[in-house]
Structure formats: structure tokens, C-alpha cells
């Protein structure tokens, strides 16, 4: 009974705290993730399912920071990209098709993040312009090939959307003038998508769990 109340109140807190990301939470099974807790995460080049050719290299850089801040070692994007290209792997599909044990051998990573970009860019309509970014992500243990965690996130930023105030505020804080001048509105929104998708959540498992380099490691769901 007490446990039930705790669960319910946790969900209630989560709904309040997530604010702009209200989705029904079915508790995830995190036992495999916890039993195979990775120290390091190799973020593979995201597969682009959108018509915008920029999507892979615009979205990819936004993943590194929230994953590292969650407490994992994250391999540098530029080095990963160079390694693949020097070995004849020139697109994200090919990179994500490499056998897990081979990735482990080359990079020494415990796990890898497989990401697909479902939406990226602006839609111009008569009355409003909207920017949207949507991604699916999967964390895979490179030793066993088992899936440790999955997640997805979609954000739309529209002119006359009530959400615009908050998302707009966050987006504005993330980029400086140089990037702003490039006028790629989906890039700053990507930063918010990645932060919300990968940052550990109050109800454990919506985001990643805290990794070994975080002071909150193994304290997921503990409220102080």
C-alpha cells in the first residue's frame, strides 16, 4: 500500500516537473540496463529519415552534452566520424549496421546509442511557420547486443503555439550569435529535444539512468 502511494506520488511529481513533456508513463523494465550499466557510450551517427540532408550532422552534436552530463564517458564526435570515414563507412546506415562486437573492438565502448531522426526542419504554412524535431533512440550493450534502454521525443515550435514561450526561452539560451546567423531553427530545438530525451528523469528510465561518473549514480528515483 505504502509502495503504491509512493509510486503514485512519484508519477504525480514527474508530471508536475516535466511540464512540457507530459506523456503517460508505463514503468520501464530497467533490470537489464542496471545489470549491464555501461561506463561509456558511443553515439553512432544518427540515421536521417527526413528530407533535410543536414539532419545527421546538425542533430548529432546535440547528443554529446546531455549524455555526458548523465554520467557517461562519451566518445568525441569528430574522432568517431573520422574513424568511420577512414574505414570507408560514409553514411549513418552503414555505421549502425556494424556488428556490436566490432564497434567494441574498434572504440573500446561498453554501449552504443542508435538514433533515427524522424523529423527535422521547418514547415512553412500560410498562417504560421513551425519547426519540428523528432527522434527515436536505443541504447545497446555492445558485449551482448541486448537493448538497455529506448526512448523517443518530438518537439514542435510554432509561432502561435502556447508552448512557444517556454521552448523558445530554452532554445534562445542555447545558441550564440554565430549559430543564430545560420538560421537553422531546428538545430537549437534539437538541443532541447536531446536534453529532454537523455537527461535522467525523476521517474527512472524516461531519460537515461545516471551513469558511473555522476554523483547521483545508483540514486535514480531517490528524492532527497
Amino acid at each position, binding site marked *: 500500500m505504502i509502495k503504491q502511494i509512493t509510486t503514485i506520488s512519484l508519477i504525480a511529481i514527474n508530471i*508536475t*516537473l*516535466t*511540464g*512540457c*513533456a507530459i506523456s503517460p508513463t508505463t514503468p520501464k523494465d530497467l533490470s537489464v540496463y542496471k545489470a549491464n550499466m555501461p*561506463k*561509456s557510450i558511443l553515439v553512432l551517427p544518427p540515421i536521417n529519415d527526413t528530407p533535410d540532408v*543536414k539532419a545527421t*550532422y*546538425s542533430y*548529432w*552534436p*546535440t547528443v*554529446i*552534452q*546531455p549524455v*555526458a*552530463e548523465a*554520467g557517461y*564517458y*562519451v*566518445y*568525441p*564526435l*569528430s*574522432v568517431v566520424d*573520422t*574513424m568511420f570515414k577512414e574505414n570507408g563507412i560514409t553514411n549513418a546506415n552503414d555505421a549502425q549496421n556494424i556488428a556490436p562486437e566490432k564497434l567494441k573492438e*574498434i*572504440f*573500446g565502448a561498453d554501449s552504443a546509442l542508435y538514433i533515427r531522426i524522424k523529423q527535422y526542419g521547418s514547415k512553412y504554412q500560410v498562417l504560421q511557420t513551425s519547426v519540428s524535431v523528432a527522434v527515436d533512440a536505443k541504447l545497446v550493450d555492445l558485449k551482448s547486443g541486448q537493448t538497455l534502454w529506448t526512448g523517443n521525443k518530438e518537439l514542435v515550435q510554432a509561432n502561435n503555439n502556447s508552448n512557444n514561450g*517556454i*521552448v523558445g*526561452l*530554452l532554445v534562445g539560451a542555447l*545558441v*550564440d550569435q*554565430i*549559430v543564430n546567423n*545560420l538560421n*537553422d531553427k531546428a*538545430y537549437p530545438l534539437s*538541443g*532541447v529535444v536531446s*536534453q*529532454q530525451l537523455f*537527461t535522467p528523469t525523476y521517474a527512472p528510465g524516461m531519460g537515461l539512468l545516471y551513469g558511473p*561518473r*555522476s554523483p547521483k549514480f545508483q540514486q535514480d528515483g531517490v528524492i532527497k
Partner: protein
Amino acid sequence: MKQYSPLLLISILAGCTTTPQTLYSWGTYPQQNYLMYVAPEKATATTQTTKLEAEIEKSKAKGLAVPPGLYAHLGLLYLQIQNLQKATQYFELERQVYPESTVLMDRLLQKTTASTEKSQL
């Protein structure tokens, strides 16, 4: 009712952002990664090394941690402009600060050693 709204706004905002306290000082590193592919003329190897090294100095002065991968990224940039000595130093530094990177850094160090030997012939 009115007096509750600022509090509500704060709690909504808190839900969307990470906690303000971060493990690392990121500076412009994530943005350099974006620029080097999307607008490479704005993030050449020399522009990046100058900017990122200045940021690292500032972080160190404040006692803030350098994020995973940044030293290795600098190593790669120096490799691109044929400064093998600095490339080696940075790959070694990444390996020392982040032992999780050992396999990859050893690979890169082999490459720099091979290039050094070749340039000495």
C-alpha cells in the same frame, strides 16, 4: 491565485531543463562540432584550437572539469594541421583523464607515431 503563478512557471521550467549544476564546463565545444560540419569555414582547425584552448584555460582557473572527448577532439584538430607533437600530447591527456577512452586513444597514438616516423624519413 495570482501569487502562485511565478512558482508554477518555475516548476514547469525546471522540468524542461537540466539542473543548473553541470559536471563539466562545455564552452563552445558542442557548437564547434556543429559548425565544423554545417559551416566548416566558420570552424577551421586553427579557429577551433585557439578558441577551445582559451576556454579550457578559463575552466581550469575556475576549477571546472573539462568534458569527455574535448582533449581528443583537440588532438584530432592538431593531427589535421600536422602538429603531431601536440596531437600526441592531447591524445595522451584524454587517456589519462578519461581511462574509458584507452582503446581509441591507443589507436590514434599508433597513427601519430606512424606519421612521426614517416616524416622523419
